[in-house]
């Protein structure tokens, strides 16, 4: 009986309090933070590869998968499920936009910025802004080119908005669907380290389209060399973000398939940019051609009229 009374529950202090008492005690923290695990792994390995550190190996991806499972626990037919897809703050959206424009070699956009919290706010509203930016910039640019021409009557060209919307939303949703299906299929054949979810791929593609918004505004200036320089710069920046994101996913596959996949991503990205530029923005030479033949035809008509009289 007395032994039971002697057994008393002992509360253990926090780690900080214990460390304050005895600073040299060895500590083992179970819930590793991102930076701690990186440092430990770097000290163990002789040749640390940056991409592997960022891909965080298998255990971190398992943890993030678990966290993703805990976050999205609502079934997909409830409103709360879609609310988890919009669970971002203003600074997070701005960070992701900044990350899509500045590719840092060795950093993976998905792991660094998205971190198993893909959102649909960015892709949807960046695509909507891009649609209206292209349509409005094309309209302004054509107006500046053709104004003053005698046969020109300004039209707002509203139908181009629907065409632009169809093209951009198809690119932003169907290409990620195809890419995700392709990666799933290859994943069943070859064991990959990294496997992105469909929403993460949509997120990357949506944010990578952001660079085209200032490019479209820059295209208002009717200088052909400026347009080409800006489109090449934009393609390089966002294309490299896409390549850096998807290269680790196909790296372990056969060489030919890996290179084919990455080049398909880049080519589709380029096609979208060049297609939009060609369809919505007239070439600057067309404006000059409308004006130049007119004096010669008017001279001809004056001559024939004078000859007849």
């Amino acid at each position: 009986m007395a032994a039971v009374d002697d057994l008393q529950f002992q509360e253990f202090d926090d780690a900080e309090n214990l460390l304050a008492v005895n600073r040299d005690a060895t500590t083992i923290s179970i819930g590793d933070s991102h930076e701690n695990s990186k440092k430990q792994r770097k000290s163990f390995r002789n040749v640390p590869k940056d991409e592997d550190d960022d891909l965080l190996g298998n255990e971190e991806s398992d943890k993030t998968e678990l966290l993703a499972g805990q976050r999205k626990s609502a079934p997909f037919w409830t409103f709360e499920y879609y609310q988890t897809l919009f669970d971002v703050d203003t600074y997070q959206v701005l960070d992701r936009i900044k990350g899509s424009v500045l590719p840092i070699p060795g950093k993976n956009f998905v792991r660094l910025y998205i971190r198993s919290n893909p959102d649909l706010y960015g892709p949807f509203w960046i695509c909507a802004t891009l649609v209206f930016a292209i349509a409005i910039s094309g309209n302004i640019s054509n107006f500046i080119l053709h104004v003053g021409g005698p046969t020109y009557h300004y039209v707002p060209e509203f139908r181009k908005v629907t065409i632009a919307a169809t093209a951009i939303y198809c690119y932003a949703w169907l290409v990620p669907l195809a890419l995700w299906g392709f990666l799933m299929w290859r994943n069943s054949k070859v064991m990959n380290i990294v496997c992105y979810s469909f929403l993460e791929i949509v997120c990357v593609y949506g944010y990578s389209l952001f660079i085209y918004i200032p490019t479209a505004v820059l295209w208002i200036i009717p200088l052909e060399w400026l347009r080409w320089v800006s489109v090449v710069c934009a393609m390089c920046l966002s294309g490299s973000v896409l390549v850096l994101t998807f290269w680790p996913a196909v790296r372990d596959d056969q060489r030919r398939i890996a290179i084919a996949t990455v080049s398909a991503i880049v080519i589709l990205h380029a096609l979208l940019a060049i297609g939009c530029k060609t369809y919505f923005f007239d070439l600057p030479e067309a404006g000059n051609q409308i004006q130049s033949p007119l004096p010669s035809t008017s001279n001809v008509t004056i001559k024939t009229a004078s000859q007849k009289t």
Partner: protein
Amino acid sequence: MAEVDESTKPLFAGLSDVSISEDIPVEGEISVPVDSPTQDDEYSTLDEPVKETILRDLKAVGKKFVHVLYPKKSTALLRDWDLWGPLLLCVTLALMLQRSSTDSKEDGGPQFAEVFVLIWFGSVVITLNSKLLGGTISFFQSLCVLGYCILPLTVAMIICRLVLLGSEGIVSFIIRFIVVIVSFGWSTFASTAFLADSQPPNRKALVVYPIFLFYFVISWMILTFAPSSSSSTKTVGH
């Protein structure tokens, strides 16, 4: 000794010693007044003349117009929401923005249905966006606010059409540009004044940006409205 006495006495024993003096009148009615429904002062709105019904709704719509034109942080728009005002404004704007049928061969301005769908679909998408981001406003309240805040843009459209009746040169363009910019700023400011309080504080910019884009697109359609002028038939055709 005294402690024992106090513990054995019953509670509130001392109160029986208090005597009510005869001067204080203690009287009054204890019954609770109950509203008995009289037959005369409450009749259903089915029996009133039609003019009263319409005028009551019109007055409610007009009161909300005044709230939009002088936006203060009031809850009148949110409390008694209705969709008559937005419908009226949307139909007026779409009627004025649609291109005439003679322009159908060229790629001209929007049709009536396109403007109508753009305004309503855009409002629904913005409302869904704010609800998904965690806003506490209800669906129809948000539709009501967004629809009523189109009023400055509709006024700008009327002014633009009147200016276009006069001249079509660069001066009229500058006047229209200034009018449209002012009304665009007014609409955006009014709608954010009503909607901003219901959003979580670290996501306000995420909710305000789509509203900005929505009114920007409508302003663009108003600014680029080009009437099918008869002067185009005078120029040399292809």
